[in-house]
């Protein structure tokens, strides 16, 4: 069974934001919980991200860090086939493109 369960992660975030109250912004809450969920995911399975970022690398790498945690190792590629080859051996695949 794979460690990554995006549907459950989304359900957790939706439930927590639905019960949220107070002055803390919901975006901050989601950011905190993304870090916690990513750290828990790293506990279950060691993985590395391969990001196809094209020429503008920083935006997609930042997006990958925001979703999978700031301490998750990320390797960016400029061409799709360069990230597709190592991603076949990796247990978790994260693909970002210009369409995101």
């Amino acid at each position, binding site marked *: 069974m794979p460690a990554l369960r995006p549907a459950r992660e989304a359900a957790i975030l939706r439930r927590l934001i639905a019960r949220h109250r107070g*002055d803390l912004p919901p975006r901050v809450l989601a950011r*905190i*919980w993304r870090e916690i969920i990513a750290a828990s995911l790293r506990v279950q399975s060691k993985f590395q991200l391969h990001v196809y970022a094209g020429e503008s690398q920083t935006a997609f790498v930042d997006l990958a860090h925001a979703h999978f945690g700031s301490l998750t190792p990320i390797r960016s590629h400029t061409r799709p086939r360069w990230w597709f080859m190592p991603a076949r051996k990796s247990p978790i695949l994260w693909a970002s493109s210009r369409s995101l």
Partner: protein
Amino acid sequence: MGIAERHGDENETTWTYDFDTAPGERFGIAHVLQDVAAQNRFGPERADARKIGVIQDIGSDVDALALARVQMDQLHAARFQGHEQMLFGPGLLHLAEPSCAAADVQKRRQLFGRPLPQQSFQPGCLGFEHNGPTFCRRRLRQSPPARNALILRGSAPINRGARYVGQRRWRPPRDAGVGPFMPKQNETLEGLRREIDEIDAALHDLLIRRAEVSHAIAKVKQPGALQAKARSCLRCGRRAKRPFCAV
């Protein structure tokens, strides 16, 4: 034998004391006469002799000499006389000690004005004593239980005696959610996810609580800052009423 006729006041009728004593018993006529003389000397401050009743009615296992000298209208004198009479009836001391201890425990339980979760695990009026605290009592009293579920599950019970402080450090139970997690056998994925959800809810409550405390800190540091910030915000209602006016 029927003896000891007492002369009362003008409007008081004559009253007769009846005593039944066996030969050789410690309860004698000298004590009775001494007691009657003491009653006549203090007059209205003492209890009415007619309300005392016949000593035949008192149980045979009670020391009548000890009971006859208690002055109920003087509390301090009765307290010292109670210690003195313990020499004659030391068995009463053993009856009094557990009652005082139970009352002490019950009093400590009622200090906070509401039942705490730790009390639900204890049978009533037993007063379990525990060792050593981990969390502050004031924090437990000020924080709502639902917002500190993790803390309360592993917190020290509060109804401790002060003499137990420092003898041995209190440790939370293994299933209290504070210590190391020990997975049970045949644990299902749904059960583990349910526990994760409970932990998330507790963490979320703590985050909300932390934000509220931060808000309070901001009020303490700069009392007028929040009001000034609120005044400087965009006032949509005022702008809707007067759209061409500077707000």
